């Protein structure tokens, strides 16, 4: 017996998973910088620290499967194949943005890549996913819809109405709760009674599991299993325990009134990228090369975004109706 730990994934898969998480990380860091420079407007919510959930779940999906997301959705978009340049252009409010600059960071949509959109009213994408799954069933299309939401949505009534419909009608839908512990400054413990979202989902007969959302391999394995069940008409819920390393939105410091530096530091020790490096035994040179590639992708995205024109005035009333 050797002391060496068996790597949990093969090197190619590990490099691929790392690369996809690294692109999200670099993209969002750059989005923050672009916000400071005034290229990104309004507000921006980044998912730094939560990349394993997006990459793990979406990595387990097929091309014909679709995603609905929320205000913290850049990672989901990139993982689903949205072009980083077009996504950054959307954040910058430019015509080459995925939504022609009309949606912004909170409403990026890319139907061609199965990224059906992000809803910024907490929990409101959840019933849409039920409807997408119903339509797929009616049309006889083999396609699962995944709805992402946060722990903040766990106390929205529409989530439970949706779980009920999904179970009642045996729909191909998977609900993914990214429990990053805080809804802005309010902790999940402060807002959620009882045993949490998994127990609640099980009460509807929906198969539900709580997993380590920092471990991309575990996320992908669980998601693959539950998505396959959903495809066969058994809707499912995944609670991925994760943490956002940054504040809720731009202007909210990573630690302060509602969480301590010590707590933050405990979680940053569990960075999904480093955990994967350890689990897969990726060597430093490989990691450095993948980081450099990811940085280049993000830089190219921003360069593309800022050269894209701002929408002309005649764009204003276009697309209100067909």
């Amino acid at each position, binding site marked *: 017996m050797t002391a060496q730990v068996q790597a949990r994934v093969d090197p190619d898969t590990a490099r691929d998973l790392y690369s996809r998480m690294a692109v999200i990380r670099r993209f969002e860091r750059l989005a923050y910088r672009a916000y400071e420079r005034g290229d990104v407007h309004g507000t921006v919510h980044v998912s730094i620290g939560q990349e394993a959930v997006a990459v793990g779940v979406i990595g387990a999906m097929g091309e014909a499967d*679709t995603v*609905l997301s929320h205000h913290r959705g850049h990672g989901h978009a990139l993982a689903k194949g949205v072009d980083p340049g077009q996504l950054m252009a959307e954040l910058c409010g430019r015509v080459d*943005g*995925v*939504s*022609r*600059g*009309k*949606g912004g960071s909170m*409403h990026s*949509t*890319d*139907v061609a890549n199965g990224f*059906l*959109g992000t*809803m910024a*009213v907490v929990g*409101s994408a*959840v*019933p*849409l*996913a*039920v*409807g*997408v*799954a*119903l*339509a*797929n069933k*009616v*049309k006889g299309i083999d396609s699962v*819809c995944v709805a992402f939401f946060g722990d903040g949505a766990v106390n929205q*009534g*529409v989530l439970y*109405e*949706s779980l*009920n*419909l999904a179970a*009642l*009608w045996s729909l191909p839908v998977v609900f993914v709760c990214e429990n990053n512990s805080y809804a802005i400054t309010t902790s999940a413990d402060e807002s959620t009674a009882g045993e949490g979202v998994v127990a609640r989902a099980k009460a509807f007969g929906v198969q539900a599991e709580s997993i380590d959302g920092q471990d991309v391999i575990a996320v992908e394995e669980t998601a693959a299993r539950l998505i396959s069940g959903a495809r066969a008409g058994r809707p499912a819920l995944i609670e991925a325990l994760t943490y956002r390393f940054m504040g809720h939105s731009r202007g909210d410091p990573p630690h302060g009134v509602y969480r301590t530096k010590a707590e933050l530091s405990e979680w940053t020790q569990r960075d999904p990228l480093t955990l994967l490096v350890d689990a897969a035994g990726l060597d430093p040179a490989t990691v450095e090369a993948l980081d450099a590639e990811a940085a280049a992708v993000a830089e190219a995205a921003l360069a593309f975004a800022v050269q894209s024109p701002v929408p002309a005035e005649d764009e204003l009333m*276009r*697309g*209100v*109706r*067909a």
Partner: protein
Amino acid sequence: MTRVSAPTVQEVQTTFAEALCAAHEDAMRLDPSIVLLGQDIRAGFPFGATKGLVDEFGPDRVINTPISEAATMGCGVGAALAGIRPVVEVDFSGFLLLGLDQLVNNGAKLRYMSGDQVSIPLVVRVGQGPLGSFAAQHSQTQHAYLAAVPGLTVLAPATVQAAYDALRWALVHDDPVVVLEDMRLYRQQGTLVRGLAPDDITSTLHREGTSLSVVTYGHGVILALQAAKVLAAEGIEVEVLGLNSLAPLDVAGIASTARHTRRVLCLADDPPLFGVAATIAMVAGTEAHDVLRAPVLSLGSRPVPTPYAPDLERLVFPTVEGVVEAARRLHGWEE
């Protein structure tokens, strides 16, 4: 020589609710992607607008929902997003409020927010107005608010044929359409010709006249036509323009009747302030200010939650007598 016979037009006498049912049926036969979602719709409860459809189209297309208005509306929006045509039935206006987040934040905005990538061909049917002592939560109207939401198309049919046409049109339209069905009209009798979906829904000139115009919609058309009969006996000839669509609004039609009679009464089922009449009056005033012989008058409901007691309820919504009185006042207005 061959005789060319006129195309067979089957005219039947039916009710407003049965016309809606017929519209569902005709549209569903043509388009297998139409799916109905709502409470008790398999039974056709409470007004019969979906009665018997489950027998022809089956439970997979005529889907009873639990009492979960928010998720049902969201499900409708999502299903439309994914390319089928759902009809969400909301029996009473009060219940629509639970689904409004999904309808307004998602349904109405997704096309625009996505940069025109997606269509939401969703039809929402909602009962509106009073039904007679159903009290405040079951007796309200939402026309003005819904018509003010960018991205929503809002229809308000007044006749059996208009109800059929509105729904047929909505079921081939690529954006969310809300059909507001005045509950007092469900049992109204009228003539129906079933046929193709119309090309457009605008307004109907129900009666021509020269003395003054009543511009209204839904149940207001019935009141205006009854009032017109009374007024005709007094030598006042009323023109009645029924708006089958509130959004988009037939501005040209309002302008035309306003310029023709030069006196306009706006008749609505909501309070005049911030209500539908305020908008019609604004349009009529702007479009015909140079020819109007009197200020544009408005008649609507009293600003009060609808009371239960019949003697109080009948004071809330416009009546034939109220329309007659307002028309006389308008007609007698000294320049």
